[in-house]
């Protein structure tokens, strides 16, 4: 059963649409759970308030991590994979029945794990490093969720096969779906690592296996933990390309380059498990250097290629629309009133300047010594997963509400500035966490006054300022997330129906006119921006190495 979209002209499989909706709804529920815990955690670490007791603090760190990094992200990605493999390819869903089975498994996993955590039977953090042991049902919940997600990824590949056999998309797969396919391949590797470690750990928690080696556990667990965030990267970059198309009618200025960069992701990005073992015993320096650099930084190269290719796709299209004056008219005349557009631009900036720079620097073998397990690490991944992925997902939802849920966005004025508020909040939160970490503050730590310990330690007095800034940023981001959730829930359940293009609040741009032949640079503005990025990166790079050189000698 298909409907033809009266706005975009795509053929939409109604079964697929329903699956997309349900997965998206559970993504939003997971996000709500995650941010509720997050705000309580922020006000616990902010020492003047110190809201929760130690027990509930650690419990909610576990809860927050699982819901934010796994449930929210993966539910949304599954919705995205279904969207990219059916709607965009004008094709049907290969097996709706299995789609519901996958969904059921994932929901069961979410409910089970969360209940066990809240019952206090799994205060082990998301990482659950052995020999810390949780209740067997906690591990079982995650296994159920992972199996469900794996089935969903298999269905994505099934959809691709049907589309290819039925020649639903012409000669070449669209770039957006190509990027999602990259994400799906990384997801298979990730979920396989997850099975490899959670199944024996589950058996160990039941007493059927004697011992889980803690170093082996950490190595394989991060094959899940880090690689799952690489699914995000691929999915997020795909959405960036899609937004360029929807908002300004743009496309990658060279699709071969963009696609090659996705291939580099597939080949190298899953080595990143090593980022978490740089200051660990058991693995040699040669192993660390090779793996942490994704084999000579070839996955970083891929991200840097996208860092040019994505903004230049906006720039090139805008220039063809006639916004050709100077270096940056294409940017000043961009559709800033479109919340999906502004969200994605802010996500790109945050991901690059905060998450990307710190990610590469903290992930170098030696500089990791000065940040490992400090609060700078969550600060870094607030920059990647929260500003990058989450803000991207929030932004694209503003398109999904009218196109997939067929509802108008209620409170569109709020939607226009929600991405800005969220960006400012998380940027403050993330940067203050990074600074705190550089001052030595540990992550996942209930009391930085060390009450009850034999000694105490006073951090650099500057931390007080950054704790306050972190609290402020966290609060702003919390409010921005609630606004987004309210907009989404009210629109989806009670919003006025969309009956055609006249009801679209966000514009869908026609394709930008073809380029006139010209010599010289295709995207000079983007080139300048990438050079600014390079300068910032170099400054942070040398600053961190200077700090490292000032520490004790160790080898």
């Amino acid at each position, binding site marked *: 059963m298909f409907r033809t979209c009266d706005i975009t002209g795509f053929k939409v499989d109604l079964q697929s649409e329903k699956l997309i909706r349900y997965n998206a709804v559970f993504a939003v529920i997971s996000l709500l759970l995650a941010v509720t815990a997050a705000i309580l955690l922020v006000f616990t670490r902010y020492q003047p308030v110190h809201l929760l007791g*130690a027990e509930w603090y*650690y419990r909610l*760190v576990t809860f927050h991590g699982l819901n934010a990094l796994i449930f929210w992200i993966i539910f949304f990605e599954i919705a995205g994979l279904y969207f990219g493999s059916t709607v965009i390819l004008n094709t049907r869903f290969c097996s709706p029945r299995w789609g519901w089975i996958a969904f059921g498994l994932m929901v069961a996993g979410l409910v089970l794990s969360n209940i066990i955590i809240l019952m206090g039977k799994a205060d*082990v953090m998301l990482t659950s*490093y*052995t020999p*810390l042991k949780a209740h067997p049902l906690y591990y079982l919940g995650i296994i159920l969720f992972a199996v469900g997600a794996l089935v969903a990824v298999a269905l994505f590949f099934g959809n691709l096969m049907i589309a290819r056999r039925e020649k639903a998309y*012409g000669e070449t797969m669209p*770039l*957006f779906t190509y990027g999602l396919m990259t994400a799906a391949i990384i997801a298979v590797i990730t979920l396989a690592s997850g099975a490899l470690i959670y199944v024996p750990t589950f058996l160990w928690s039941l007493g059927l296996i004697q011992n889980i080696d*803690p*170093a082996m556990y950490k190595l394989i667990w991060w094959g899940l933990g880090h690689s799952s965030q690489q699914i995000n990267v691929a999915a997020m970059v*795909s959405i960036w*390309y899609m937004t360029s198309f929807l908002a300004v009618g743009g*496309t990658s*200025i*060279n*699709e*071969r380059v963009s696609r090659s960069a996705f291939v580099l992701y597939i080949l190298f990005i899953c080595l990143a498990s090593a980022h978490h*073992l740089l*200051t*660990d*015993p*058991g693995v*040699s*320096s040669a192993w660390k250097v090779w793996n942490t650099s994704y084999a000579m*930084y*070839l996955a970083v*190269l891929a991200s*840097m*290629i996208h860092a040019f290719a994505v903004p230049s796709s906006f720039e090139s299209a805008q220039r063809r629309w006639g916004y050709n004056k100077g270096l940056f008219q294409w940017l000043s005349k961009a559709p800033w009133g479109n919340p999906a557009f502004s969200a994605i631009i802010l996500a790109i900036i945050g991901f690059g300047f905060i998450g990307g720079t710190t990610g590469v620097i903290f992930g170098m*073998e*030696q500089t990791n010594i*000065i940040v*490992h*397990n400090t609060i700078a690490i969550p600060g870094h991944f607030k920059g990647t997963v929260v500003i990058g992925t989450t803000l991207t997902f929030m932004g694209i939802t503003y398109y999904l509400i009218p196109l997939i849920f067929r509802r108008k966005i209620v409170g569109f004025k709020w939607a226009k500035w929600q991405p800005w508020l969220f960006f400012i909040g998380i940027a403050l939160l993330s940067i203050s966490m990074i600074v705190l970490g*550089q001052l*030595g503050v*540990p992550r*996942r*730590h209930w009391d930085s006054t*060390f*009450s*009850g*310990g*034999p*000694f*105490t*330690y006073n951090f*650099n007095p500057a931390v007080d300022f950054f704790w306050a800034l972190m609290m402020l940023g966290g609060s702003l981001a919390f409010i921005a997330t609630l606004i987004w959730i309210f907009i989404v829930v009210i629109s989806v359940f009670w919003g006025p129906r969309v009956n055609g293009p006249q009801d679209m609040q966000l514009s869908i741009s026609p394709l930008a006119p073809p380029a006139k032949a010209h010599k*010289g640079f*295709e995207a000079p503005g983007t*080139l300048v921006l*990438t050079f600014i990025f*390079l300068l910032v990166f170099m400054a942070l790079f040398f600053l961190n190495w200077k700090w490292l*050189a000032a520490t*004790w*000698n*160790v*080898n």
Partner: protein
Amino acid sequence: MSLFSPAEGWYDKKVSKDEKMWMVIALILCIAMFIWMIMWHVYGKQNPSSTTYRTSTAEFAKLGEAYTKQNMIGTDNGIPVVRPQPNSDVFLVAEMWRWSPALILQKDQAYKFHISSKDVVHGLSIQPVNMNFQVYPDYDYVLEFKPTETGEYKVVCNEFCGIGHHTMIGKIVVIEQEEDLKLYGYENFKKAPDPLPEKTNEPLSEADMSKLGEQVYTLKGCGACHKTDGTSQIAPAWNGLFGKEEEVIENGKRTSVKVDEDYIRESIKNPQQKITVGFENTPMPVFPVTDEEIDQLIAFIKTLNN
């Protein structure tokens, strides 16, 4: 176009000048960073070591205890203090929830640290110099540290290790001259500690027993949870404990017991039998202590008044 098949000829389209330029710069940067890490091993002074020995929690606990017992020159807030010789092996034990021993190091001298855990995974974080390493059970990580600045350093645990994680904090003092010891109140630590009573056929006096008990308390790490200054965040304090009436939970029922020798003996051997009210969330594990050591601990507890 990202939602449609790309236009005809996309595969043969030439890469624009600016994109090509950026890719070349990016590639150079990537290779340079890779080489940088390798060169730091040659010219840099901070490189995580590749030396690891396989051990077991029991073996490393024994090694650490023997090392501390032999080299201990005093205690600081219940933590044994050791002043290792330059270039010697140092055994630093991580456990729930303490770092043992505290160390006195000489500036610009190298020490070969052996670091491992007696229980779960911990995180070694030396502040304010901000150096961080992972600590595992079953793996003895060998790191050669050479402190380059004098001062008082704290060892924070930055890997979650249970409810008392935030109380896990150790100490390293780096000195240049002997007088520096005064800054930390360690000036009396220079000489060897008082010899402990020798075992004879005669039963030991209560005072001698208590002295031995105090050593067990320090070495086995009882003080990580049981304080002697009246604070009781994780476990009941030991001062004023003997002879006290305690509210406990036994088989799910709340009763009252008098803290006597039998009760203490039972609580050490089978800590889950009677759990003191207020400490239900921090259950005590079973520690490998002998009956003789338990008697010494009891003698020690008896001497601790309010």
